[in-house]
């Protein structure tokens, strides 16, 4: 059996050390409200990051998630507005709008897999195209302005708390648990690792490689949809400008968490550490009044440092070819 060794928890220890440093230096860092705030902030990107981890482990990638978040929020707001114009009560219109938004978001993800499976278009290319296209659609639908069609109670989803825990954080916990279970305890999870490790061997082992890609990319689209709805609820509007640049922040978190861009290796738990790493650093530096520009430099450097540390402990194949 594997013995737990100190270096296997190196990233966790560094994160802990970072928290201690901020607790001692940054005013208000350890306050419950601030910590809950960190959770709320990381929760939105976090959900997508878990799904992205699975996608990357399977050897694919989805660059469209940032625009997909904006697209979903806009669709949600627009549908709500449209239903209201028919005189449909909001209590009925909003749930239907949620379902339709999630279906639309999943279908978008599914088509990325379809291009891959049917025409061998790399997911990198299709999702890069979607990154631009979805942003365009979001702007077309809104005309560039926010749609504010939501009733006050809708804010609970993204802005509310349950037992003082922010609702998005609850979502994060559920999605984390679900992905931990899928990746480590299901036959499907094994298929994901096998497809990323060697797609041809996986196929010859009787694994339906195409199905794995359909499921994972649809799921990622769906979770981008969920996040888009939460963001819309938080800011009480459907806005085409949200989610800009998220795709790279999410992929950064996945890489910091130790997943290999070559596929086949990575952990959901690692990604959890990755998103908290980024969240804590931004929060701490903001509290310390460190300039936005320095924050960018530090966040970038963190990716490189994390890769070096992951290679050191020999966990990943981040640099494996």
């Amino acid at each position, binding site marked *: *059996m*594997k013995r737990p060794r100190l270096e296997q928890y190196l990233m966790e220890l560094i994160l802990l050390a970072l928290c201690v440093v901020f607790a001692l230096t940054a005013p208000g860092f350890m306050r419950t409200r601030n910590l809950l705030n960190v959770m709320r902030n990381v929760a939105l990107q976090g959900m997508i990051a878990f799904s992205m981890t699975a996608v990357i482990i399977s050897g694919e990638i989805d660059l469209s998630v940032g625009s997909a978040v904006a697209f979903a929020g806009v669709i949600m707001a627009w549908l709500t507005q449209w239903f209201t114009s028919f005189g449909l009560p909001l209590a009925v219109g909003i749930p239907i709008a949620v379902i339709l938004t999630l279906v639309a978001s999943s279908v978008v993800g599914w088509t990325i897999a379809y291009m891959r499976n049917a025409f061998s278009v790399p997911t990198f290319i299709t999702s890069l195209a979607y990154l631009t296209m979805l942003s365009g659609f979001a702007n077309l639908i809104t005309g560039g302005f926010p749609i504010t069609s939501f009733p006050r109670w809708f804010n609970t989803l993204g802005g509310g708390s349950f037992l003082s825990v922010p609702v998005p954080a609850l979502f994060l916990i559920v999605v984390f648990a679900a992905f931990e279970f899928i990746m*480590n*305890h*299901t*036959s*499907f*999870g*094994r*298929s994901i*690792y*096998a497809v990323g*490790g*060697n797609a*041809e*061997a*996986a*196929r*010859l*082992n*009787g*694994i*339906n490689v195409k199905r794995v890609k359909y499921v994972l990319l649809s799921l990622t689209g769906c979770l981008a949809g969920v996040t888009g709805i939460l963001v819309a609820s938080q800011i009480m509007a459907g806005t085409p400008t949200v989610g800009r640049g998220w795709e790279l922040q999410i992929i950064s978190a996945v890489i910091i968490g130790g997943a290999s861009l070559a596929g*086949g*290796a990575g952990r959901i738990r690692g990604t959890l550490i990755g998103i908290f790493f980024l969240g804590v650093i931004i929060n701490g530096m903001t509290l310390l009044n460190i300039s936005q520009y320095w924050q960018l430099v530090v966040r970038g450097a963190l990716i490189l440092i994390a890769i070096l540390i992951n290679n050191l402990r020999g966990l990943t*194949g981040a640099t*494996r070819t």
Partner: protein
Amino acid sequence: MVLELKNLRKTYPGTVAVTDLSVRFEGGKVHAIVGKNGSGKSTAIKMVAGAVMPDRGSISLDDRPLHLGSTFDAIHQGIATVYQELSLFPDLSVAENICFHELPHRGVRVDWAATRRRALDVLRELDLEVDPDTRVDSLSVGWQQLVEISKAINHDLKVLILDEPTSALSKDEVDQLFRVVRRIRDRGVIVLYISHRLQELPAIADTVTVLRDGDLVGRRTMTETTLAQIVSMMFGDVEHVRMTPTIPEQAEVALEVRNLTRKPWFEDISFSLRAGEILGIAGMLGSGRTELLRSIFGADSFDSGTVLVSGKPIRRPTPARLKLYGLAYTPENRKTQGLIQIQTVQENLTLAGKQSLSRRGVRNRTLERAAAMQQVNDLSIKISSLDTVVETLSGGNQQKVVVGNWLNDHPRVVLFDEPSRGIDVDAKQQIFRIIWRLSDDGIASIIVSTELEELLEVCHRILVLRDGTLQQEIVPGTVSVEALYNACIGVAQ
């Protein structure tokens, strides 16, 4: 010009590849070098090409000893080798590829006009009509092979080694290749020609050198010998001990193939396989044997025909579906097709059978571990721990992991593609014993192999595949290896 090999010896851990080889090759002739797998011909050639250092012995050209520390040395001594795997740059033009080793320069800039001229000279000399500006990847494999040879001509060529040059070529392309080889020979170059396709030798070879088990068996002038004689030199007199278990007369048909066709690989293949039966498919490289096996397993599509498992025709076959019907397939190339190299032994041993080791899609790690452990014990896989990464295992152990992985899925028919490639004698015997044990348990096997002695040793029945069609059925024990070999290459006795 004379290339002389004197007392060459090369050993690898556990085996002697070349025992004590002395032979002379004169210029202006094509010298074929033949021998079955493991005869030492590849090692001998690699020593001349500078890719492998001999343990002792010497190689000399016109009584001048050559020091071949690397392939680079060999190239600069005028020894060029064209391997089966081509070393061209597909995105570059024919001219750039031909002149790649020494592109003409004017100052710091490449002189493209001179590059083109030089390439054109070489092509003209070989009587090859191809535009030097053509991109290499737009050429057929046969033409690419010719470009590769033209590239070798560019140097001060003394020895040209051709390693299985015709294995991927069509009939017309082979004829053209031979014309080029003869032109080069007529310039006085020493041509060493390695091929499995004995039937081509009368057309191209001037002499034939036969190796067996690392020793020189003999050398003949092509016009004074026959293919049958060469084959008997290759195999010698060997007795085969057969341990194949008998199969019950009334065993039901486990797998049936009806009129399976996939052009241009194979055509109208029909046979059936009873439970517990071990069926060999013998055929040379390019006979369509691997393609046939892959189509049966649903890994490649086919044009027409039917595969029936236990009497049921399989519609829209895929590996996933055939697995459900109890088929298993161990691929030819275990590294790229059989194993997930970055995963552990346990993971690789439980991949094919992962459905049966889980309940409603939820894994049972205790079961997985037990199943992996059982295969490690049954197949005597040598590992320090189940958590060892499979990449680090020896070829034989990796092959056993591939087999064990499928046994954990409890198949009814196992398709083995070259199960003994690249593994040592002990591991081979163990794989055969596994196949016999499966037979005892009523599990049928199909074995595709170039190792004809092995097929004669292991199988109940052997089908001979040549140029994509089934030629005949052979019952081991009634025929010699030579006869089987002759059937494979289409030479009458």
